[in-house]
């Protein structure tokens, strides 16, 4: 008698799960706009810097081709690690792989860096009484993050902003606590602008921050800045826009104070020379007077021969479709989120890199 009840309970449980199964299997059929529907799922992980644009690309790619892209934003360090370990189909990082990281990845094959978009790292602050457009140069920002400048009305800041009223609030520095490409890019800028920073802290995906509180991911830093009056942190442009942050105008190589905008991010990518393996950073490189200095490209990582690295033919094909989408349709979508499309002299080698991807020696062409 009782065992019968138990069986009934189990049957109900199975039915529930089964109903759920039937209920959700319809989620992949969507009205198609154009292109073939190939379906399938691929997964990637990495940088939070481009997460907004990759998520938007993912949504549109799915309506176009039916392929689901699961992107897990765990930071560039995580992206490189998961890519190397083969637990994801593609990785994502803002900071190009170091030689040691490339060597580790070589066990599975040649890693290929595919730059996708340019983004700007804003110096966002949340200080009541401080208007937007605070002018800061690299050396001053470095001193703030070194903990040498402790209050918002410090003379160093005053010198750069003689006509702005500065409150006497204490500065709370917010930085990343996880291994981040955004950190690498930001600290590259600080290192370039401040010999003290270069000597004391250096530049990497994780550094020993002299001061401040840590938060994980771009989103976490944004949340921490939002929560604390007097806070300053470095977050990608899209996050600053999403939260209506006030951002600083940063002094570029040409001596101009530039705000982070789509135009200034695009300008930062002009006139760059990129190496053949596409491992580059655009931080503080452009001499264009309209260029925002803390802007650079972000990369997707994929093995040249995906199948030899352990992926199936179908997965490899879907990844190539995805990369191709990013470098074609995706480039038109990026500006909607204030990410700059790749300049021509970066887009061409990027497309060539994607065209060179193979599966067990056979070239892969996008088919959706």
């Amino acid at each position, binding site marked *: 008698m009782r065992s019968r009840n138990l069986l009934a309970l189990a049957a109900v449980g199975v039915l529930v799960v089964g109903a759920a199964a039937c209920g959700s299997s319809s989620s992949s059929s969507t009205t198609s706009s154009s292109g073939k529907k190939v379906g399938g799922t691929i997964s990637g992980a990495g940088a939070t810097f481009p997460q907004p644009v990759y998520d938007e690309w993912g949504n549109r790619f799915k309506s176009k081709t039916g392929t689901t892209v699961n992107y897990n934003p765990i930071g560039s360090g995580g992206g490189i690690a998961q890519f190397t370990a083969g637990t994801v189909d593609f990785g994502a990082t803002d900071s190009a792989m170091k030689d040691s990281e490339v060597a580790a990845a070589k066990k599975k094959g040649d890693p290929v860096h595919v730059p996708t978009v340019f983004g700007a790292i804003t110096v966002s602050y949340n200080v009541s009484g401080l208007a937007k457009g605070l002018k800061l140069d690299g050396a001053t920002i470095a001193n703030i993050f070194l903990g040498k400048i402790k209050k918002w009305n410090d003379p160093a800041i005053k010198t750069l902003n003689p006509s702005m009223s500065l409150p006497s609030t204490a500065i709370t520095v917010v930085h990343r606590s996880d291994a981040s490409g955004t950190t690498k890019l930001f600290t590259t800028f600080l290192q370039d602008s401040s010999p003290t920073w270069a000597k004391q802290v250096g530049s990497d995906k994780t550094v020993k921050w002299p001061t401040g*509180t840590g938060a*994980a991911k771009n989103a976490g830093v944004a949340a921490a800045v939002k929560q604390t009056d007097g806070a300053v942190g470095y977050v990608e442009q899209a996050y600053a826009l999403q939260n209506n942050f006030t951002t600083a105008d940063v002094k570029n190589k040409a001596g101009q104070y530039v705000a982070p905008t789509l135009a200034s991010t695009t300008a930062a990518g002009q006139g760059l020379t990129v190496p053949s393996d596409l491992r580059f950073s655009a931080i503080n490189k452009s001499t264009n007077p309209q260029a925002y200095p803390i802007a650079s490209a972000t990369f997707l990582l994929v093995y040249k021969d995906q199948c030899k690295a352990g992926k199936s033919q179908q997965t490899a094909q879907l990844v190539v479709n995805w990369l191709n989408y990013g470098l074609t349709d995706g480039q038109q979508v990026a500006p909607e989120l204030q990410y700059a499309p790749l300049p021509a002299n970066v887009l061409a080698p990027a497309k060539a890199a994607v065209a060179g991807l193979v599966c067990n020696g056979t070239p892969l062409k996008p088919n959706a």
Partner: protein
Amino acid sequence: MEAGGFTAPGGRRSALQRPSGARLPDIILQWGVTLLSAAILVLIAYFFLKLIQESTTVFDRFGVLGFTFDNDWDVARSVFGALPLVVGTLITSAIALLIGVPVAVATALYITELCPRRFRSPLTIVVELLAAVPSVVYGLWAFIVIIPFLKPAEQWFADTFSFIPFVGGQVAGPNYFIAGLVLAIMILPIVSAITREVMSTVPPDHKEAALALGATRWEMIRTAILPYSRAGISGAAMLGLGRAIGETIAVTIVIGNAPNIGHSIFSQGYTLAAVIANEFGEAASNPLHRSALIAAGLVLFVLTLLVNLIARFYVVRAERGPRTPRMIAPGMGQ
């Protein structure tokens, strides 16, 4: 007595005798569950061994003591000294015990001794409900509600009492204290439940004797219940400690995740469990880093093992009761 093995006198088949083939299901069942239990043992042993095996990489590099007691957890430079993590784990657990155990014992006392009978059951259920809230929800609530709410109070406390060591200086949003507070809330149900169990083993004679001698309720508690339950309460506290040491998600949300030993209880810190949760993603392809995280897991495992052993020793002793009577009146008994 196993049916079926009995032969009636006269050699006739007994009514109870079964064909030998009927033994089979019995044998299958017995062997089945025995093998299952053996398999579980093998699994646990493999689990332990695997943790040790994967940790050897980092132990070879830094030594077991070096790994556990060096104060330098620097992923970028591939230096893994887990002292900030161990200290963070101990600090947050200590705060959890300091806040949680007295409240849990007080709650247990109130429920068993002082509150009106009809409230006993609802109150017990309410305290147990604290255990039903998942860790991540506590983390969410503490992060959104408690941290901003307590920050001014913490800053006031830090400023007013800055002469006390480890108090004072800038108060960070997420910090050791908040983590300890959340842990205290999480261990409340378990410490309270076990304390109640232990207190229910106090012989009613002791309690009634105290009351008969004119003790007030509180004095009865103080003289009859608390001394008797001391061992059990220690055991309960140790079990709570074990829980606090291993708690990951709630802690990682509210501790700030800074791999340093903070100079005050209001600084950001890190714990063994939190570092594993945060860094495993990055460590996937770096054998040394991965080994370091697994070693952190091993240290965590050993810590909880030790604490639980001590706990069980106390709780078992408490439930058994003192073996010798405390006082023997002259001439009475042996």
